């Protein structure tokens, strides 16, 4: 009796599985060429278009310009986008979604740890991210270490595993940075291995960089002779990518003197760095500008909560912008919810930043910080079709993200009830995403096996 039931259930699951696969397949097999017409297009390049057309083909932007000037391919699916605003997908240079776990408590410096070994791609944070219009993230380990591991840059494609989200360079390298922090977060008084003071923190970091340099020197001296190679050290290997300026250091830092410490270290060891949070950035804007270092600013509703953030200000973006610093924003999700990322630009404009500068900080400037500006961050022919469709001014509280597209695929649609649940919240909105076909398949196989025994 039970076996029969199980077989029946299995067959029912098989039917569901078939339907699901069918539905998913048809979604994926959507027209490969799409043309939005009549939209306000904010390109983040020199020119915006009031009555514009955007054509996407095979995941790339084919053309963008005034509606009257852009020829639409005959096979394109046309979308009347009058009244809509289209802009590049948002780029969060600092996120913690994915239920991540980076460095552990064994040491304050752990360049060997890769954050991508810990990411749950079904975490609802990814759905909330695309609901907020995000298409590219830098997922980072936390700030409780001087060096908490390797970060990963991801595109928010539909994913079964982390491999589906990774961004690979032309040579296959998995793109990511290195997370570092100073100030109070990595200080653990009474700990043997963690620093108790800022002076100790800087000394530990400098010693680590010197050690990593020596490791690199040994490899160089070994030349072609494998016998002379030092034993492989995956942490120090990652550090060589920092010295090669391929892996950018993403540095948590708040207080003005901590910011200066980062600039000093970057100068001493010649690495590329992005300053993150920079609560006190407005106090040393000229120094940051002179160092040519970009800043990823966090917009928080109020100062305080930690001693280093007492002087946090809505004006930081504006002051850095005026000083000539490349400014980006980040959610620091869970510190701020990815669904409110557009709000960061709005609040920065409230603090005096230019609207265009604030929107660039959400898009192309973030792309620059992640070395992805040749692929995403602005709407220009040849770049990835990472874009969002809005129902109004991106700086307005009343504006909604209607759709989010990554590489020509729609990954969020506010009209879809499940997507809408993640966008506005409600019962079940923070559960892991409902999986599509993989788990139906596994469940079905399990049931068939049990039924057949």
């Amino acid at each position: 009796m039970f076996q029969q039931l199980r077989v029946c259930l299995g067959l029912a699951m098989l039917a569901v599985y078939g339907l699901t696969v069918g539905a998913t397949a048809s979604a994926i097999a959507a027209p490969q060429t799409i043309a939005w017409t009549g939209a306000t297009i904010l390109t983040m390049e020199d020119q915006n278009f009031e009555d514009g057309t955007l054509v996407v083909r095979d995941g790339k932007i084919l053309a963008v310009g005034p509606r009257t000037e852009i020829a639409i391919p005959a096979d394109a699916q046309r979308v009347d986008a009058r009244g809509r605003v289209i802009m590049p997908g948002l780029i969060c240079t600092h996120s913690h979604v994915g239920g991540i776990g980076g460095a552990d408590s064994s040491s304050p410096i752990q360049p060997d740890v890769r954050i991508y070994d810990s990411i749950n791609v079904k975490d609802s944070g990814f759905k909330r991210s695309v609901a907020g219009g995000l298409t590219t993230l830098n997922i980072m380990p936390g700030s409780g270490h001087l060096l908490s591991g390797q970060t990963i840059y991801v595109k928010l494609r539909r994913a079964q595993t982390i491999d589906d989200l990774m961004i690979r360079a032309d040579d296959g390298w998995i793109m990511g940075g290195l997370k570092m922090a100073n100030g109070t977060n990595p200080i653990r008084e009474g700990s043997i291995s963690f620093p108790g003071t800022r002076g100790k923190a800087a000394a530990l970091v400098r010693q680590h960089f010197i050690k990593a340099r020596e490791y690199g020197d040994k490899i160089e001296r070994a030349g072609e002779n494998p016998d002379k190679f030092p034993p492989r050290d995956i942490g120090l290997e990652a550090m060589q990518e920092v010295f090669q300026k391929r892996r950018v250091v993403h540095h948590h830092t708040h207080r003005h003197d901590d910011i200066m410490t980062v600039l000093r270290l970057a100068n001493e060891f010649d690495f590329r760095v992005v300053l993150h949070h920079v609560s006190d950035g407005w106090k040393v804007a000229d120094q940051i500008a002179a160092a040519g270092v970009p800043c990823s600013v966090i917009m928080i509703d109020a100062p305080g909560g930690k001693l280093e953030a007492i002087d946090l200000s809505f004006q930081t973006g504006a002051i850095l912008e005026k000083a000539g610093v490349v400014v980006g924003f980040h959610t620091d999700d869970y510190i701020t919810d990815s669904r409110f990322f557009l709000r960061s630009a709005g609040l920065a404009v409230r603090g005096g930043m230019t609207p265009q500068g604030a929107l660039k900080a959400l898009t192309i400037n973030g792309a620059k910080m992640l070395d992805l500006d040749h692929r995403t961050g602005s709407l220009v022919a040849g770049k990835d079709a990472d874009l969002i469709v809005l129902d109004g001014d991106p700086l307005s509280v009343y504006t909604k993200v209607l759709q989010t597209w990554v590489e020509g695929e729609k990954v969020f649609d506010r009209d879809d009830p499940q997507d809408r649940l993640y966008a506005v919240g409600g019962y079940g909105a923070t559960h892991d995403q409902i999986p599509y076909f993989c788990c139906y398949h596994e469940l079905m196989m399990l049931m068939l096996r049990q039924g057949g025994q």
Partner: protein
Amino acid sequence: MNKCIFRILPILTLVYFGFLIPVAAQTAIQGAVIYTMAGEPIRDGVVLVEGGKISAIGTRTTINIPANYQIIEAQVVTPGLIDAHATAGLTGIYNQPQDQDHQDSSAAIQPELRAIDAVNMQEKLIDYLRGFGITTIHTGHSAGQLVSGQTVIVKTTGGTVESAMLREVAAISATIGPAAARREGSPGTRGKQMSMLRQELIKAQEYAAKRLTANEAKSEGNEGQGAQSLARDLRLEALAEVLAGKTPLLITVNKAQDIATALRLAEEFGIQIWLDGAAEAYLLIDKIKSAGIPVILHPTMTRATGEYENLSFETAAKLVNAGIPVAMQSGYEGYVPKVRVVLFEAAITAANGLGFEQALATITIDAAKILGIADRVGSLEVGKDADIALYNGDPFEYTTQCTGVLVNGQLTGDPPR
């Protein structure tokens, strides 16, 4: 260097310049639009302020501005905003032990802890909130203990709690659910929480009855053993006020099951309660409405984790549309941001189904009605306190600034924020 000072000066001002500047007591506010929250908005209107109160309000064509009045202009004028539940003043910007007085963990039930003994009216966070147009806050002991203590309603004037006071005991703060469960000690479960809370209320009932008997004996000149045997008990006295209907119990509950428990408690003891937090209130709309209980809703942008996992940006709209009184709050924050701005929290509800004026009501007149202070604040009407907020656009827009604030008719020194 000069350039640098020029740059940081506004910020230093923003951080440190938090006191009220006395100006002419007679002021005229001219607004392109005035949301009085007592009728239709007034286009091209005027509010006259005299002696800390509103003395006249209407269109510019109907109001004569006396010659000696100081004139202040704004695009949008609203009543001073009300934060219906905060901890600012008991929680401070530094987030260090010396500026955190929102919760004592030595006992699970401490209704006798007075907010007036703990609130720091000169706290920077209060100055910060005022800069966005917030002129009244209901603040006090936070959620997190079964009964954590009392709350107080104050104006954001700085000074002392005495000079800022609107209501000395606004409510007693209680929490049901995992937030009030103790890892070590009792209560460790929901069942135990309700057992302890009910038992304490029953004790307070008995205490009140004994006190009544003793007082009657005393008034009859029979100061015998009845009066002498009843030692004063601050804890039971405070709860007796709840049982007598004089002090509401502010119950922080978020899961639907805990909201239902709070309603059950209110019914059993016939007490007045305010639902606080209420993340899953949208699941129990009929029950809350038929119980006639107001909701002081969690900040819309509270992190959707733990008890708040099922929160929705549309809850305020759903409750208001059902006819349930709703006020928005800043709540308690343990890290960053150390305080939330109720203007911002209401803005998200405005954009998620509630609409502009209803959302504004949740931080003005509706909040005032729930808190029982609508005779003084919450709308711009003749005779009410001249608590007024000025904006250079839609107050809910991210890019709009608050350009001026009046509390009790005094223009504050806050820079545009």
